[in-house]
């Protein structure tokens, strides 16, 4: 097992990884930008080192700075967290060249999972249903029109190297389709340095269901159950839960098997997530991998009792999975709280947290990097906290989550806690009647 591990991230996930290290007896080494000098990860880690200025490209995304930091601190492994360099095949392979263990899948898997069109092909070839669409990259707008004739509108134009909703457009007819293909390609070229786009049928009313998988280096791979992540705003998830109210036991079992097949198809190792769309008529389609720890991993931890960050580290160190199946117990729901103002179209709200109260009590876990005096920086993600409630059933988890969200208080920055409270207290959420349209009911009408 590693003795010294460098964390190439910040915020709550860096704190989460520090805690896993502490529990495992591993010395944690934080890296920080000048904006994060007083951040919680900087002070909680066993050691910490400044790697650059506030701009993430010069610090948290700066590969030479992070490798140099690992070298001068004698780190043996690097945990990339989520975002930043976490899914960079290039970073993973540089780590390996520098004899640093990268906590995640191998670079080849990362390359494939990062190329969505190629990944879709590989997964489809393994017999997993994918959303009907183009067989690969669209060469020109005319080809798009031909494919559209076969699969019908509406269609989603997607960048093969896109992510988080960027490089994605919905086309409703031939006229706009050509334009959308051209625009998406140039957007993607600008944003991701790769202009390849492909087409997928737009599945109306689909729910977003993902499966957590863990895979060791000896070919054993296990599903830890699903997470329902349908409640999103512009691809930013707000509420996640497990189990999903959409899945029967038999559908769950079929989807879990599909997730494992998909993961095997790209040679997945370590901890990851397989994302599906689930149409209202119960048909599921693979959409993509998240080849890293997910923000919402905590809900799975709460029902399985498995520490996923510890699993990442163990598996990267070459240890085997100690189980061949896991039976989740109870229910867990997470509400993400962002420093954004829902009344002002979710405008980011940077500022200093003057005072805050973090809820607690039975069944409540809050993963956060907040403390009184912390400055929410405009340079980074607006995630403030993840409030996670577990219960022996969904009803108990909801009651606990509502109580905790009502308790959550910060001043100094606007946040989405009250919006989250209204959603989870609402009838639709309580009934489990979740769909992509649910959030709209809670947004201020744009007059």
């Amino acid at each position, binding site marked *: 097992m590693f003795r010294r591990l460098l964390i190439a991230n910040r915020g709550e996930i860096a704190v989460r990884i520090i805690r896993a290290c502490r529990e495992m007896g591993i010395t944690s080494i934080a890296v920080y930008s000048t904006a994060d000098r007083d951040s*919680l990860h900087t002070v909680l*880690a066993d050691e910490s080192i400044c790697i650059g200025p506030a701009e993430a490209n010069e610090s948290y995304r700066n590969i030479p*700075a992070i490798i140099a930091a690992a070298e001068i*601190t004698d780190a043996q492994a690097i945990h990339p967290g989520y975002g930043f360099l976490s899914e960079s095949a290039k970073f993973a392979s540089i780590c390996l060249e520098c004899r640093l263990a990268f906590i995640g899948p191998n670079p080849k898997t990362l390359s494939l999972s990062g190329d969505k069109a190629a990944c879709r092909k590989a997964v489809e070839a393994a017999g997993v249903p994918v959303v009907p669409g183009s067989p690969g990259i669209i060469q020109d707008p005319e080809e798009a029109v031909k494919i559209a004739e076969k699969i019908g509108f509406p269609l989603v134009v997607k960048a093969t190297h896109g992510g988080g909703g960027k490089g994605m457009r919905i086309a409703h007819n031939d006229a706009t389709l050509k334009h959308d293909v051209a625009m998406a390609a140039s957007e993607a070229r600008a944003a991701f340095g790769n202009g390849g786009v492909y087409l997928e049928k737009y599945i109306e009313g689909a729910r977003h269901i993902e499966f957590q998988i863990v895979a060791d280096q000896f070919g054993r791979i296990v599903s830890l159950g699903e997470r329902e992540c349908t409640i999103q705003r512009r691809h930013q998830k707000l509420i996640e839960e497990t189990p999903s109210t959409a899945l029967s036991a038999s559908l769950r079992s079929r989807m879990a098997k599909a997730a494992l097949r998909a993961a095997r198809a790209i040679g997945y190792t370590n901890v990851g997530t397989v994302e599906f769309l689930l149409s209202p008529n119960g048909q599921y389609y693979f959409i993509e991998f998240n080849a890293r720890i997910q923000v919402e991993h905590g809900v799975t931890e709460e029902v399985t009792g498995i520490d996923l960050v510890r699993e990442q580290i163990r598996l990267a160190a070459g240890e085997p999975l100690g189980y061949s199946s896991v039976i989740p117990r109870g229910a867990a729901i997470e509400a993400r709280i962002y420093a954004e103002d829902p009344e002002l179209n979710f405008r980011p709200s940077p500022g200093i947290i003057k005072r805050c109260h973090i809820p607690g009590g039975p069944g409540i876990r809050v993963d956060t990097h907040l403390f009184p005096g912390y400055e929410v920086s405009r340079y980074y993600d607006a995630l403030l906290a993840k409030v996670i409630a577990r219960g022996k059933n969904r009803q108990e988890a909801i009651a606990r989550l509502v109580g905790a969200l009502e308790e959550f208080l910060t001043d100094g920055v606007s946040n989405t806690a009250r919006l989250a409270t209204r959603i989870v207290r609402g009838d639709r959420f309580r009934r489990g009647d979740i769909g992509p349209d649910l959030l709209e009911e809670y947004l201020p009408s744009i007059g």
Partner: protein
Amino acid sequence: MDLGELQELIKILEGSQLAEMEIEEEGRRVRLSKLTAAQMAAPMHFLTNPAGQAVPTAQNPDAQEQSNLRGNGLITIDSPMVGTFYASSAPGKPPFVLPGDTVEPNQTVCIIEAMKIMNEVTAKLPVIIEKVLVENGEPVEYGQPLFTARPLI
């Protein structure tokens, strides 16, 4: 004491990025001091790393500039990156600079090695080197002061 003058001084201090101002003339002395950000916000400075820092903490990590004023008319030359400090171009070679040396702008003062690449650190101003703050081969953080120097402008 002329209160109008005092108000003027306070305004000047508030408008600046300075922390303190001290003026002494003709037997009078005025010292004005700002709340520091730390005092205003009380972040958790008291949380110390149980195992200590990997490398010394940069004294001025907010450095966007290479050089930073010290109180006594000296500036520091800070590391532009995280890496390993080398005072000379190769083992056994003489250091690029020694205390007392006069350094021209763009003259190399040291090397920071990061990922096997040797990055030359140069002076931005003409200065006289006062002190080398880091040992040869020592790891340095981003923004960590490497030299103190006296500007020649």
